[in-house]
């Protein structure tokens, strides 16, 4: 197991180099001046852009550019984000916790709802509940994230005014910046509780409900479908028949024997769900003006802010690899049939 984890960790640099080499090669489509824009911070620098081109060797071959870029990144200089007007790394530090919070608070209900509905569906195969849940999940799976997000926005923000846009209301955001509000973790939900500000906590949760509902509704639909077929598959296997033959109650057979084994493919799917959520946050954060990585990336892409977009691709790539590694390890722990040597 240890060796296996080490081997998966070794894949992290592969992804890092793969993604960055790919992006530097893509950058060859741009002119040296456009490439230099990645490092420009002010108007003054814009005037002697040739100095920047020279400094970073942006008119040299791709390998020189790559090496220079790598040296900068190792020093923590990911370039300057036009979209946020600050260094890329600062934007990342500020926005990553917000997105992580949103993704985590969506991931848990996604899995719970998906597994629950999927198993109910399988246990009532072809019954009315099964029909409803199957049809609903196909429908939800067909909903583009931006369409569902916008419909929810129009109805619950525009029409009913129940929820707000952004991360907190303006009054609270000023308080967070000014007063003695400590950012212990960077996660606003946790920090507000640690500061004993229950009103801010409720406000933050209120702002997160619409994005979370959007993400959960679309992502859990896939889990429902896989969970259903996985459980149906497990129910036909010999060990389930043996359990029944022993005279165990149907509910125990289902819960203790079938369900646990049916959950195994869901763990792999968890990795895909992370990818789906990262795709989803780009859209939901944009629609709900939530100040996370997704909105940053979307803004950056529209403003041709290559520095941010590049960094965003590298960050999300590494995140996905780490998430998949967790899924694989969990897989090995839960399923005794799997051996990694």
């Amino acid at each position, binding site marked *: 197991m240890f060796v296996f984890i080490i081997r998966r960790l070794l*894949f992290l640099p*592969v*992804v890092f180099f*793969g*993604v960055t080499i*790919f*992006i530097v090669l*893509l*950058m060859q*489509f*741009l002119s040296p001046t456009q490439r230099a824009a990645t490092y420009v911070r002010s108007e003054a620098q814009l005037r002697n852009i040739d100095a920047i081109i020279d400094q970073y060797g942006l008119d040299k071959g791709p390998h020189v550019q790559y090496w220079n870029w790598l040296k900068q990144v190792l020093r923590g200089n990911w370039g300057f984000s036009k979209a946020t007007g600050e260094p890329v790394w600062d934007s990342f530090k500020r926005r990553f916790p917000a997105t992580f919070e949103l993704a985590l608070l969506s991931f848990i209900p996604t899995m719970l709802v998906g597994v629950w509905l999927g198993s109910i569906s399988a246990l009532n195969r072809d019954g009315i509940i099964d029909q409803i849940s199957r*049809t609903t999940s*196909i*429908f939800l*799976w*067909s*909903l*583009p*994230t*931006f*369409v569902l997000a*916008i*419909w929810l*926005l*129009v109805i619950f*923000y*525009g*029409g009913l005014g129940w929820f707000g846009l952004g991360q907190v209301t303006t009054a609270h955001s000023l308080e967070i910046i000014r007063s003695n509000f400590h950012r212990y973790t960077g996660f606003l939900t946790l920090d507000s509780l640690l500061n004993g500000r229950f009103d801010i906590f409720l406000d933050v949760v209120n702002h997160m409900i619409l994005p979370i509902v959007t993400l959960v509704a679309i992502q859990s639909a896939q889990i429902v479908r896989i969970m259903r077929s996985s459980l149906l*598959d497990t129910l036909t296997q010999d060990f389930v028949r043996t359990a029944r033959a022993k005279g165990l109650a149907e509910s125990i057979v289902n819960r203790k024997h079938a369900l646990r084994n049916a959950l195994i493919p869901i763990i792999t799917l968890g990795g895909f769900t992370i*990818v*789906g959520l*990262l*795709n989803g946050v*780009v*859209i939901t954060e*944009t629609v709900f003006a939530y100040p996370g990585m997704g909105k940053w*990336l*979307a803004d*950056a*892409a*529209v403003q*041709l*802010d*290559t520095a941010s*977009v*590049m960094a*965003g*691709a590298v960050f*999300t*790539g*590494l995140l*996905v*690899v780490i998430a998949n590694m967790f899924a694989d390890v969990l897989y090995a722990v839960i399923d005794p049939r799997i051996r990694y040597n």
Partner: protein
Amino acid sequence: MDISSPAVSAQTVTPKVKKGWWQSKAMRRFRRNPLGIIGFIILLAFVFVAIFAGPLTSSQLINYRNNCVRDLGLSRSTVTDLRNPVKPAFWRIIFAPPGSCFNMPRDGFSEIPKPPSELSILGTTSGGYDIYYGLIWGTRTAFYGGIIVTGFGLLVGIIIGSISGYFGGWIDTLFMRIIDVIFAIPGLVLSMVIVTILGQSLRNVIIALSIFAWAGYARFLRGEILRVRELDFVDGAKALGARSGRLIFRHVLPNSIGSLLILASLDIGTIVLGVAALSFLGLGAPAGYADWGQMVNFARGWMLGLPGQPFAYWYVIFWPSFIIVLFVLGWNLLGDAVRDVMDVKS
């Protein structure tokens, strides 16, 4: 009764009736699935709309007389030819419409959407663009994007997948690591990176999605080839002296490619969704090009309506989003049914 009597064997050897594909087992199973049939009908309707986009928008073309009419060589007096199947213009707009036909005609240039009127039957979106016209021609854009991305992805995917699966070794490892890297970045983020660097246009959106699409097909085909390669008949062909080229193209590929083609064609819905998502973020087609995602993007400024009348501009957001959902729903319903039919286990 004497088992070996000729009478019995004549009875058991029933003449093989050749059943049409309509009566085949897979088809019968498909016909029993009402959701699959609904999906099929929805898609058929979209295909119809895409093909007859010109005639379906003839009233708009006649009333607005945009560049499309000019590029078709029609004047004020001959513009009604578009409604007449005897005239060449009717067929030209179906089979070879000028590029300008994809630009939505404008009823004025106001940012404020206009409610449905006699001229614009579904209203106009921000910038005076005709919603009905955009929806109809957007169907063509959707199919173009979906088919080109799938076709290109399949071409590259089949080549890489068969090389990787058949030869194995370091080539396989290299391609698989490249695919791992591509899959490590969420598709939307990767496409955003590519479109940002290459420039914002529909063509670059299609390139970006193709770069993502081939990887999935290559990996799937590789798995299939690894499975088929172990089957006895491949060994047989090898024993008869077939070279690797012949083995791949005559024996292995034809046996692994069928399911890939079906799965890929069912992916078109997902790809159209990707195009729409990028257009929605403002990364797709140029402003005014008939494209559903862009129409949703146009609607963003107005969808919350006016103070006190939250649904004042409902039509700018309802129609384009409804059509996108219907389109993707059609593909997914059909796809679900076809996967059910193909799955031998159930």
